[in-house]
């Protein structure tokens, strides 16, 4: 059995995919409920969004079953992107 075939056998079936979809839908409902909470709303919503995104990447994009190089190819730009989001705010104020 070559590596490609091993990868195919490791991939989850429709049952796992459907379970992930149900969890994603449930987390979306939780997000909507969280909007009514007056405190710690933003960290909770960010954590829920990150969890949902991670589930899609891990199970639907098969990052869980692929080379770790692919994980780094995603995590490094995400880290830089977060830095951009933070740095651009004071910079934009200065430029204006």
């Amino acid at each position, binding site marked *: 059995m*070559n*590596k*490609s075939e091993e990868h*195919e056998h490791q*991939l989850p*079936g*429709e049952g796992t*995919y*459907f379970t*992930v*979809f149900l969890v*994603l*839908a449930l987390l*979306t409902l939780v*997000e*909507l409920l*969280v*909007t009514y909470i007056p405190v710690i*709303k*933003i960290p909770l*919503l*960010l954590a*829920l*969004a990150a969890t*949902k*995104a991670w589930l*899609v*990447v891990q*199970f*639907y*994009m*098969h990052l869980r079953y*692929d*080379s770790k*190089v*692919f994980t780094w*190819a*995603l995590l*490094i*730009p*995400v880290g*830089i*992107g*977060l830095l*951009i*989001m933070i740095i*651009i*705010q004071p910079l*934009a104020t200065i430029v*204006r």
Partner: protein
Amino acid sequence: MTEHITANSLTEVEAVHGVQAVHSAETAHEAESSTENRKFAMWLFLASEVMLFSVLIAIYIYGRLQQPEQHAVLNIPLTSLNTFLLLASSFTVVRALAAIQINDRTKFLRSLALTGLLGTIFLVIQMIEYSNLGHEGLTLSGSPTDPKSIFGMGFFTLTAFHGAHVFIGIIWTARVFWGAFNGKFTQEDHFGVEFYGLYWHFVDVVWIIIFSVVYLI
């Protein structure tokens, strides 16, 4: 003499089989490397997309901080429906992949058609949302230095750029569907479906972030 010739022939046959086995292993290895390389290329492309969307989200956050009151015009129930549609479309893509892996062509084609339909409904709802926001006075127009236009500019640039990605995804879905309809993908060879799926799921991931950062927070 005859025994010697037969022994020689057997050795030659074994050698030919050995060469064929090595050649077959090399071909399989090359095919696997090619698949992994193409997948890595797609991840690098998605990495560049992460950077692009990060900048657009950063611009939106800036506009939001300047004009927090503008957020009240956004329609959460409508976009929640869109979120469910896009999540469902990601499920139909992996359902299509699972179907071709077990050679269930009917389910494969139906799942792809459903993906295209869900993506199209998503865009139609986004157009309705834009139309409603236009009536509320939220538009893209105006100078970037005008504080009144910053929120609208950040919002429409980000969400429309995502919408354009959904549109490209729908075209790609139609292409994969057409290929599938003509028997292009098989149980053994369906990398094209997985490759297309990576793009579609990425568009879903970006929407998950946009839904939270733009609409819910």
